[in-house]
């Protein structure tokens, strides 16, 4: 009681959002957890019979393939975002404030556009008679199939999620004093050596949080894979969608969702461990 009474009273203002989280996040997840161990019934959706079947079926080659594909797509997306995002983050972090503002706006514009419109834009570019293929034809080359392939999904995911990589990286790079770059240069480092030995290790926490964000949102992505990958590139997200709204297999969808949540939590935990070790190196213990 004594400790509680010492807390400032205005902490109560955190209450409404806490309540919001409990009602709209904790309770639904608890319900999903409960559904995932109950039996699917074609007539009543969920039957009150405990089962492990929703999980054991995930060992089917179909589901193993599904998870491997989803994780592969998420991983490739993350790597591409990191490779493309690092230079952008560096340029923006070292740019004049006015340039930085414009750059940041351009960076987050894809997030502001509705997924459907953005994907339609990609269809115009990547489709069978799209910009890319027309250019190839003009050059006398054979058209290629991009739309409804994994490549299309990756292109789409990178496009939407790259801000999640650039923003934390930028924040991390901004905190590195430019004098450290000059010090490295003065000690004989070329630009590449300076980047590898100063910028990269010092912005590492930003890279970890950016990678974590991109990986987890890519892992649970649904609209982009469906619209750009079509029926050929099924991912966990589209499987969950179908099981919830098409086949009404809520227990099955719940087990899939819980596995995704579990993978995400494990990754968050690992990322925190990784960055904490870095932080420990920097500061006196």
């Amino acid at each position, binding site marked *: 009681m004594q400790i509680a009474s010492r807390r400032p009273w205005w902490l109560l203002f955190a209450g409404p959002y806490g309540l919001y989280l409990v009602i709209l996040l904790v309770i639904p997840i608890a319900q999903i957890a409960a559904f995932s161990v109950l039996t699917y019934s074609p007539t009543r959706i969920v039957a009150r019979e405990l089962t492990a079947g929703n999980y054991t079926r995930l060992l089917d080659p179909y589901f193993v393939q599904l998870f491997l594909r989803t994780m592969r797509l998420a991983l490739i997306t993350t790597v591409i975002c990191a490779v493309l995002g690092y230079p952008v983050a560096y340029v923006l972090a070292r740019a004049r404030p006015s340039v930085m503002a414009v750059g940041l706006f351009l960076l987050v514009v894809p997030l502001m556009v509705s997924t459907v419109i953005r994907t339609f834009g990609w269809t115009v570019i990547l489709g069978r008679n799209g910009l890319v293929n027309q250019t190839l034809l003009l050059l006398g080359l054979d058209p290629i199939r991009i739309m409804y392939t994994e490549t299309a999904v990756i292109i789409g995911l990178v496009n939407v999620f790259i801000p999640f990589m650039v923003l934390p990286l930028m924040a991390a790079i901004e905190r590195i004093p430019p*004098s450290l770059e*000059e010090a490295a*240069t*003065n*000690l004989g*480092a070329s630009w590449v050596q300076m980047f590898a030995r100063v910028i990269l290790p010092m912005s590492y926490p930003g890279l970890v949080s950016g990678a974590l964000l991109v990986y987890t949102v890519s892992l649970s992505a649904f609209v982009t894979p469906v619209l750009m990958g079509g029926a050929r590139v099924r991912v966990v997200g589209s499987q969950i969608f179908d099981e919830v709204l098409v086949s009404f297999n809520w227990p099955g969808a719940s087990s899939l969702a819980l596995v995704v949540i579990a993978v995400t939590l494990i990754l968050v935990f690992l990322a925190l461990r990784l960055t904490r070790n870095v932080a420990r190196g920097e*500061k*006196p213990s």
Partner: protein
Amino acid sequence: MPGVELAVTGLVKRYSSHVSVGPISFEVMEGEFFSLLGPSGCGKTTTLRCIAGFEATSEGAITLNGKRLDHMPPNRRDVGLVFQNYALFPHLTVFDNVSFGLRLRRLAKREIEERVARILEVVGLPHLASRYPTQLSGGQQQRVAIARSVVLEPRLLLFDEPLSNLDFKLRLQMRSELRELQRRLGKTSIYVTHDQTEALALSDRIAVLSQGRIEQIGRPVDIYEAPETAFVADFIGNSNMMEVSVEAKTRSGTVMRAKSGLQLTGPVISEGVGSSLRVLVRPEHIRLRATREDDTPNCMTAEIVDFTYLGEDVHLRVAIAGGGELLVALKSGRATRNLECGRSIELAIDPSDVHVLRK
């Protein structure tokens, strides 16, 4: 006779439309400790950054040991820079910070360890090799920064206000350590500072800069006691500066009168009667006399207007009987013990302490 190590010739650095710095020319001798002294914005840091290669020069040439430096990339210049904020790598230990440049040069592990150990010994930090910079005090960080540059044995060492982030006592201590270290290593050094006492205490020679130009280059004693320009006289130390006109010329000196009415006898000069000059009298060159001595030149009776007791020194502002005010700095002692505002005192200035400025 040591030769010229660094030569800066007609250096100009233009920012956008207006000329910001230059033209600046100076030479630094081998093993010399050379300071660039001036207020902020005078171009001293720009000059230093041009030598280090972080700024491109617009005009002029920089040569180190006879070789052109200004077209070389900054990582190839063989010039060590000690930064104002130390710029130590926070993610690396002291050892890794100091060995940073050695590793880039791909030296053998054994040699790296030996050289780092030796230099840490020199700066007095051999026991802190495995610490991180944030675990060190300001003075220790400073020493690591110096070690990191010195371990590469560059031809030239540059210091960018390295002591300005330290508190007063530590600054004095690091100042003498730095001087001692530089003497021991015999490294040609350029030291940028806005702190005149630092420049006077450390330097073999000083270049005083103002508004992108060099005002005067000279030994500390020249700069302080024989400033050539009003700016140098005013920037270095306290000063009594006066516009005077020459009234008479005698065999022993020149009689001058200031606009305030104050009459001074100065050294023999070439300017004729009637010409106007600017003269400087350092406050500490004005002496307190027990009684009036009319036979010596520059004796005056004055009233104390302002009195500041500083322990070692006593600073006075006095109104001279014939007109005009002077700043006087006295060593505190028996003679100054009874001074107070409003008291009348006798002062004298040796004619050789009346210094005529060139402009």
